[in-house]
């Protein structure tokens, strides 16, 4: 490459080779910082949903993208500074292509993806031409360093919440876990037949009160239908958090420890969760429905599992989000039809789980439904793509929730028919987070945030236990699970403190 060749051994040169190499390196770093900016920006915007594993996977994707672009530019321009400068100019249009496309199609509706792609390509060729013809490496070097400094500053500003979260005080180990650890030793032998247990978590299924508050819909009929099937339901249950990562980690560990955990600690707590350890000791096999690959517990734990989509089709994943914003978004299928197929497959698999083994199977289903993407109305008719993330119109969410009611009833009816002696828990991780979306994306403040936070934590909670009566009122999902386990295996787990009201 020109810069390095010039820098090596020319006698009498004023610029030492090391300095030239350093500046070439700084140029490359500058372009890499520019490439990383969208990653940091979207991480900051979605901090509560992203864990460390997600972040580093996305960073790997960004680094690979940058590497490919810089190598192409190096091959064309044969100079590190010029290649870095070209990369700085082209990497953002490639990374944020879809936002630009959305803006252009608002102005010129006839413009399609390939029109904008050709405009970007033309811009790239012109850029190469201008930089090669008119920009000297020395000027380019300065421009690169200025751009690098500006973007470093932007990255630091955007990364500050992330850094403060990671660098916070060392979390104390959850004392509740120690108490629960003792329960492992206290497992008393049970009868020959372990009833199959089905735990389904429907992400963002609003509890009765929250749904009524934010959509005006009275969901009583659904609760009545469940009661008629032998379920005990609770309409006023609360979760401990509005974050899926936190609440599901809590549920799988039967504790509230994740409230204080960093994202990395939550991820670790999912690796060998207490609930699974406990049931393994009792003698259960495990079956998993893992929508979005959200459950990071190792595959080896599960005798059976169903993962409805590949990595690029996942919705709650930082790398997918970055791809979705970039020029490469067509590789992701975000249409309603495939998503509904996935949802139908998950419900069908859940029902089939009741035929896998007669006893001793714990089926854990995490379904990101009725959570967005909103793809279906109450009658099962597919929605237009524009409503997929339409958080402003509460009818869109309500339609998908009403459709999920039908799916859930069909699911449990089939399980009870096949496996009447089983135990079924229907929970949600949190309620409908309408006010927090309005705050986050439209900056619409809540009049009484504490009150809204309460309604947003109002969850689905229904239990069927071998068709027998079970007495509980407004327990959290965690306490309901503890109650059911105590009832089945006399573990003496007891209750933990209910979520604050």
């Amino acid at each position, binding site marked *: 490459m020109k810069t390095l060749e010039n820098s090596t051994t020319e006698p009498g040169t004023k610029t030492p080779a090391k300095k030239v190499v350093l500046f070439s390196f700084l140029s490359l770093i500058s372009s890499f910082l520019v490439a990383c900016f969208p990653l940091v920006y979207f991480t900051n915007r979605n901090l509560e949903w992203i864990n460390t594993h997600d972040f580093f996977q996305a960073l790997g994707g960004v680094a690979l993208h940058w590497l490919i672009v810089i190598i192409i530019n190096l091959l064309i321009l044969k100079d590190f500074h010029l290649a870095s400068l070209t990369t700085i100019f082209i990497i953002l249009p490639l990374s944020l292509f879809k936002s630009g496309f959305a803006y252009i199609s608002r102005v010129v509706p006839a413009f399609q993806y390939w029109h904008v792609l050709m405009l970007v390509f033309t811009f790239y060729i*012109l850029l190469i031409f201008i930089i090669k013809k008119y920009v000297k490496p020395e000027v380019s070097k300065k421009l690169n360093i200025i751009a690098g400094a500006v973007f470093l500053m932007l990255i630091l500003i955007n990364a500050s919440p992330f850094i403060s979260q990671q660098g916070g005080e060392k979390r104390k180990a959850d004392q509740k876990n120690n108490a629960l650890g003792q329960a492992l030793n206290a497992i008393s032998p049970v009868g020959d037949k372990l009833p199959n247990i089905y735990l389904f978590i429907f992400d963002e299924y609003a509890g009765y009160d929250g749904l009524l508050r934010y959509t005006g819909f009275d969901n009583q009929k659904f609760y009545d239908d469940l009661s008629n099937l032998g379920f005990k339901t609770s309409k006023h249950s609360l979760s401990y958090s509005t974050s899926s990562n936190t609440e599901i980690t809590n549920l799988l560990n039967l504790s509230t420890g994740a409230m204080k955990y960093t994202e990395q600690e939550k991820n670790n707590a999912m690796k060998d969760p207490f609930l699974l350890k406990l049931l393994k000791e009792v003698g259960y096999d495990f079956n998993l429905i893992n929508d979005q690959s959200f459950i990071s517990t190792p595959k080896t734990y599960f005798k059976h599992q169903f993962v409805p989509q590949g990595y690029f089709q996942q919705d709650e994943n930082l790398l997918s989000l970055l791809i979705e914003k970039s020029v490469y978004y067509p590789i992701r299928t975000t249409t*309603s039809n495939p998503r509904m197929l996935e949802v139908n497959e998950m419900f069908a698999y859940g029902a089939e789980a009741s035929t896998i083994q007669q006893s001793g199977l714990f089926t854990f289903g995490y379904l990101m439904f009725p959570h967005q993407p909103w793809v279906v109305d109450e009658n099962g008719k597919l929605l237009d793509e524009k409503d997929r993330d339409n958080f402003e119109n509460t009818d869109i969410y309500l339609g998908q929730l009403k459709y999920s009611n039908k799916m859930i009833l069909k699911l449990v009816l089939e399980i009870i028919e096949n496996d009447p002696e089983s135990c079924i828990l229907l929970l949600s991780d949190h309620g409908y987070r309408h006010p927090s979306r309005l705050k986050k994306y439209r900056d619409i403040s809540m009049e009484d945030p504490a009150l809204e936070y309460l309604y947003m934590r109002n969850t689905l909670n229904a239990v069927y236990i071998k068709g027998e009566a079970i007495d509980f009122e407004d327990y959290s999902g965690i306490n309901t699970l503890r109650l059911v386990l105590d009832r089945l295996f006399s573990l003496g787990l007891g209750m933990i403190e209910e979520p604050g009201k």
Partner: protein
Amino acid sequence: MNKSYKILLAFVVAGLVLLLFSTKIVLLVTGNALEKKQIDTTITSPDLHYHIDIISPPEGLLRSVFIRGWAFDTKYQADTKRQITMILKSDTFAYEIPTFSESREDVRDAFPRYALTANDLGFGGTFSSIAIQEGKYELFLKVGEVGAEPALLKTNKTFIKEGVRFEEVLP
């Protein structure tokens, strides 16, 4: 004008020309181009039964619309190979859209009096709404056994293409 400027100018001109025709090229390359035809839809058959199960909204890069349903002629012979095509008819021309066939046991069971065999009673087809010219279209189905004269039926479903929108006009 030196050589590099000439090459650049030629590139920009070629880019502009491609930009103008890119939609047609993409439709051709992806096999989504639709040919305008003259199809007489005045004679429809009373012997046909049908139902449209799904009309998806336009989705994806090509704004593809998926239509799925079933249709049959009461005069079908047992175990024959059948074919259904969809016709979008405007006032002046029509598009004919091929479909895939599928077996529909539920339809066979719902019409025991016709002693149907389930094969090829169902159909499904996708077309790009980008390939459709602006205007109002009625959906017809062309239904028949392979090798025999097909019959037409009107589905009473109307669509409108306006700008990028392609929607069913609800009654």
